[in-house]
């Protein structure tokens, strides 16, 4: 089982570790930022193992609760997401074992064992997905890609190097031959341009769970 590193930048890993340390120190709100940051990724991971959308939600919630409870054990020798990934897989497998023992549960709850995050999902729908939810998700993805394409070259390059290539600000400043402050400003402006298109869609769809 390979847990891909979604964001190899050491700065981000350090930021996650700082949020963990703040949480252990008593600031539960710091953990909330980690939940928002990784919730979709964890749900996608679990969704590859379990069909039922509500069960995916339950397992994802349980994953974060277990992580919260065990946060004092996180030593920082691995990235936070790697640690969270293992908890999610273990939690999902445990839930699947319980479901398999239940004779009233049908096979439609289950998927073949597959916890490889790098494997792309086919075009099949999970049981509770609707065409509307699939369309909405594709729509927002198209909006983001369109917003990226419409960016000035320097902003597009900065945000692409950061989000897709996972380079740190220092590395980007070397690639783009500009100060780190400029890198920070360009990435922020790129995000703002994308967010300006995405946030209205999010506000319109707030609370909907297809």
């Amino acid at each position, binding site marked *: 089982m390979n847990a891909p590193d979604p964001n190899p930048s050491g700065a981000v890993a350090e930021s996650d570790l700082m949020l963990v340390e703040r949480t252990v120190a008593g600031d539960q709100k710091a953990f909330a930022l980690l939940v928002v940051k990784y919730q979709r990724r964890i749900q996608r991971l679990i969704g590859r193992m379990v069909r039922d959308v509500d069960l995916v939600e339950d397992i994802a919630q349980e994953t974060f609760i277990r992580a919260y409870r065990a946060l004092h054990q996180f030593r920082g020798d691995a990235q936070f997401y790697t640690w969270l990934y293992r908890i999610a897989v273990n939690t999902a497998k445990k839930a699947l074992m*319980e479901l398999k023992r239940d004779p009233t549960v049908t096979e439609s709850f289950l998927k073949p064992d597959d916890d490889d995050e790098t494997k792309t999902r086919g075009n099949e729908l999970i049981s509770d997905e609707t065409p509307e939810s699939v369309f909405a998700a594709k729509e927002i993805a198209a909006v983001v890609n369109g917003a990226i394409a419409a960016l000035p070259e320097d902003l597009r390059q900065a945000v692409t190097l950061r989000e897709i290539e996972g380079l740190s600000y220092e590395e980007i400043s070397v690639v783009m031959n500009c100060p780190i402050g400029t890198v920070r400003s360009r990435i922020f402006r790129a995000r703002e341009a994308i967010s300006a298109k995405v946030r209205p869609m999010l506000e319109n769809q707030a609370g909907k769970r297809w």
Partner: protein
Amino acid sequence: MKPEQLKNRELVSALADGQLRGAEFTRAVALANQDGDAAAAWHAYHLAGEILRTGEAGANAFDQGFLARFETRLAQEANLKPALADSPDATKIVANYAYTKRANGQFDQSNPANDSANQSSYRWKLMAAVASLAAVGAIGWNSLGNLPGVADTLSGLKPSAQLAQAAPGAVAPGHARPDTVAPGQARPDAAAPGQAQQPQIMIRDPHLDALLAAHKQFGGTSALQMPAGFIRNATFEGAGR
């Protein structure tokens, strides 16, 4: 957009990339939690990043209630299991109750704490413990009844029409004498304070005695439940064994 709002969003963007330290980091964390606009920016920036990396949004892209549900559930579990925060094996806790309930269509999010994961087996253990106690109590009661003196006391509690014939003048316990003492007055045969009581009359049933005498040869004990001598010293001597 206000300049301060823009500045807050810029801080959140830098926080997302791990670029903040010290006071800036603390301020950005507080903003992302307490300021609605900053929190929305945190959510939107990460969603955009995931879409850029994976090319897809996923059906849960619009779900902004996950965090609220998580905090509610965490608060509920904190009330139920305060010791878990110190558990070294927190990641191994089997929290399968919700999954089973969900699978059976019985999941109740509003009251997840009514039963624990081992509630069913706990009930059986409780029943077994109660049954064991009852059995021990019954055995103990029977053993107590076999003790000398106690058996006679217990048997004397049973009224019998023959008792009056067997011992004229004797009164079974629990039955009032014709000349019952009025309340407040001492019984005529009660020992005066300071004097020793006269020995109690043992009430015996002659029919019972006859039965016991007829059967004592077949039992290892006498009527008084004392081990018979021939049993205690029993030996077997046979020629040529």
